């Protein structure tokens, strides 16, 4: 694959350089493994992250397409592939509740920790960020490689859990004890997998922060950084400070499961009629606090890089500066800070007193303001633009209203009394999928179409891109809009039978069928993308350095950038989005273009 050829030749020298004693080292020719697998080049590692992440996204999606069949036709054998499952999962092709819960928990885990974050941070962050700040590579290339491989091991651990006795983790991605403490072996594997993933994220975030702070090119002051870099910086801090508590919680749960402690087990439990033989004295809510202390910031980890990508694409395709760059920067910093003090809005129903609920409702309302500011800024950026409806732009534009829906529906959830009705219903599912699926996933698609030329030197096909966009847009809305109706009607989430036994759900079941077909349609419309993705690597139209006529630094490097990224040391002369500058010859004035006296 084109970029690898060029990027990997002297990959390892980067590593040595990182440790300072490469000046006099001869360029040894590298074998396949060092070149393509254990590369130290941030671009290769970024691509490895991206592809692995995409494959996991696809896998997580496939799990969900299975679940949607069960929800649409409860208790009827899964057609075609139903026979492939072992009897302890789907005897005669009929999905068991155990298996449904495994699929649910693993869908959530995989999508969040193995799909979106690795693609958005590990993939785009690794590939684009150093280029955008004019750095030759990440600050610690060996660490960078390590974090990819630790992530990879975490992923494999998670996948392997499907094959252990009684299958994968089945207590939801939230893994609330006591259920998870007494759950089957898959939960232990899940915890080990999480420890891997958390370690990887921690290594990665240290690397990101140091790179952004230390390796910015000459003239690239913070207020000249592309918004995408800001988003990555804040994201890195969220990962760095929010993940360790979950690592601690994971260790505690492992102790409960393996060493027989009872950190999360109160005294006097009776499991299926028999008293549980443990010391007791634990506190189940403790896990929820430690989990959500990570998991709320985590949801902003899912969306901030997406916002960064969208800003880049919008600025480029409106041919004008972003509206209110400073407001964007301050908002994203504030957002990151606030995201550490809202977590218990996931716990209103655990019996919170007035004071604490007032606190968390207030912080939750406060945190919605910076999001409004960011969305407003992006929307106003369109005013006075000259919009090019390129494929990346379509996905980026779609992000705005989709995130709008997802975000706005967060407000009723953030107010405890309405949450009494909406908590744990499909309304919540619809809320966050609007932010993560038609929101983040669309933004990631935008990023792929936008930076693909930089990574491969070739452009992706536009027609296939448009088919992919319109198909996905229609299907994904048909999947998630009806869930608001179901949620308001009082249909609970995580129901194996799609809510059939409840009479108050009778009128809502019809939607399950429609959602299922929409989801499968969504799957079909990913095929043009997958074809486009791989075909364009070989046959896409060849492009030069700056096919989009963009202004940020990555476009001053060759496409694909060689080892060390830049042919001459990049110098920054101006802000990131100098488009349509009055009096300028072209409608874009790149950061790296010297002022002509």
């Amino acid at each position, binding site marked *: 694959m084109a970029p690898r050829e060029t990027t990997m030749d002297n990959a390892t020298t980067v590593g040595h350089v990182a440790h300072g004693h490469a000046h006099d080292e001869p360029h040894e020719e590298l074998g396949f493994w060092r070149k393509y697998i254990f590369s130290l080049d941030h671009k290769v590692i970024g691509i490895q992250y991206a592809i692995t992440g995409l494959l996991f996204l696809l896998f997580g999606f496939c799990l969900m397409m299975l679940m949607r069949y069960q929800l649409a036709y409860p208790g009827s054998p899964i057609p075609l592939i139903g026979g492939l499952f072992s009897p302890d999962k789907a005897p005669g092709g009929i999905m068991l509740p155990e298996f449904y819960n495994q699929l649910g928990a693993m869908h959530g885990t995989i999508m969040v920790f193995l799909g979106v974050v690795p693609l958005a941070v590990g993939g785009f962050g690794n590939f684009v960020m150093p280029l955008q700040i004019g750095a030759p590579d990440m600050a610690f290339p060996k660490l960078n490689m390590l974090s990819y491989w630790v992530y990879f091991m975490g992923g494999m651990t998670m996948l392997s859990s499907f094959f252990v006795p009684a299958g994968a983790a089945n207590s939801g991605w939230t893994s609330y004890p006591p259920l998870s403490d007494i759950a089957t072996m898959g939960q232990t594997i899940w915890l080990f997998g999480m420890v891997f993933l958390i370690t990887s994220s921690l290594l990665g975030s240290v690397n990101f922060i140091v790179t952004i702070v230390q390796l910015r090119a000459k003239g690239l002051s913070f207020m000249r950084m592309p918004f995408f870099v800001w988003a990555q910086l804040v994201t890195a801090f969220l990962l760095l400070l929010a993940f360790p508590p979950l690592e601690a919680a994971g260790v505690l749960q492992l102790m409960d499961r393996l060493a027989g402690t009872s950190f999360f087990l109160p005294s006097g*439990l009776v499991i299926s009629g028999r008293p549980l033989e443990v010391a007791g004295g634990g506190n189940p809510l403790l896990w929820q606090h430690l989990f959500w202390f990570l998991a709320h910031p985590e949801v902003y980890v899912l969306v901030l890089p997406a916002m960064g990508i969208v800003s880049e694409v919008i600025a480029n395709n409106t041919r004008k500066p972003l509206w209110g760059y400073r407001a964007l920067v301050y908002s994203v910093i504030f957002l990151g800070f606030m995201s550490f003090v809202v977590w218990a809005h996931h716990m209103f129903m655990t019996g919170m007193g007035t004071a604490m609920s007032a606190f968390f409702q207030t912080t939750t309302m406060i945190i919605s303001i910076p999001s409004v500011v960011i969305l407003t800024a992006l929307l106003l950026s369109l005013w006075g633009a000259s919009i090019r409806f390129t494929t990346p732009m379509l996905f980026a534009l779609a992000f705005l209203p989709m995130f709008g829906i997802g975000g706005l529906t967060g407000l009723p959830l953030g107010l405890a009394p309405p949450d009494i009705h909406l908590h744990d219903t499909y309304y919540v599912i619809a809320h966050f999928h609007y932010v993560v699926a038609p929101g983040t996933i669309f933004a990631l698609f935008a990023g792929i179409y936008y930076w693909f030329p930089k990574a491969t030197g070739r452009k992706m096909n536009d027609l296939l891109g448009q088919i992919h966009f319109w198909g996905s847009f229609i299907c994904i809305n048909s999947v998630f809009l009806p869930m608001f109706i179901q949620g308001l009607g009082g249909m609970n989430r995580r129901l194996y039978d799609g809510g059939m036994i409840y009479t108050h759900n009778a009128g809502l079941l019809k939607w399950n069928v429609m959602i299922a077909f929409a989801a499968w349609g969504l799957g079909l419309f990913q095929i043009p993308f997958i074809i486009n993705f791989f075909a364009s690597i070989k046959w896409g139209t060849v492009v030069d350095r700056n096919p989009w006529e963009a202004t940020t630094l990555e476009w001053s490097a060759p496409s694909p950038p060689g080892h060390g990224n830049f042919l001459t040391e990049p110098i920054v002369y101006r802000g990131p989005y100098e488009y349509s500058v009055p009096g300028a010859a072209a409608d874009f004035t790149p950061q790296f273009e010297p002022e002509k006296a």
Partner: protein
Amino acid sequence: MLHYLGLPAAASSHAGDIDQMTVLVHWLMLVLFVGWGAFFLFVLVRFRRGANPKASYAGAKGKIAKSTEIAVAIVEVGLLLFYAIPAWATRVTEFPAENEATVVRIVGEQFAWNVHYAGADRQFGRTDIKLVSPDNPLGLDRTDPTAKDDITDINTMHVPVNRPVLVHLSSKDVIHSFGLYEMRVKQDAIPGLQIPVWFIPTVTTDEMRRNLGQPNFEYEITCSQLCGLGHFRMRGVVTVQTADDFQKWLDEQARDLAAAR
């Protein structure tokens, strides 16, 4: 708006407040979304490359942004101070007194709701996990004098209409969640804790059947927290009755107990 949200019919005294709040928030959301959406669509058309070949460096002017943001903030503050926080306070502080409420102990387990009434003496009998057995899921100690008249049941709960119901909620094993959609009640049942829940049912099951024209309608207890492979079928029924019907039911139960001994 309320109608369009398609919430289940309300049947408790506080449901109105909560629904009103839900409605208000959704108005806010709708206004914002339609406002921005309209602007969004207009801009897409007005400033497409064809219509506006030369982009403007200066871009949007004026205070629209700031004012909308401030407006949103103000509305949210209003919702918090005048609706959300007070409404929540009534839920978690103003519990009815034991003597003027129907007091029920509800203990969740995988995958059923155990219902426990104190009986005539208004005192819950002693329970002990060592006594738990298939025919005594609560581990109720019948030798305890206060337990003699205790009424227990599984997955069915009877309450009189228009009288406060005070539920002492707990769980034997994992976390469940006690959800009563028509009552706008939801509360996690957490092992190791006994959590009070209260509401005043205002419509009997029979009335509701007539109102909805659904002869087999029931108020359903839904488990709203993943609690294992039987989570989806952890369903209970609440029968809201007139005071007399409820009294009749109590007497029946007492008679059965006597007969059993």
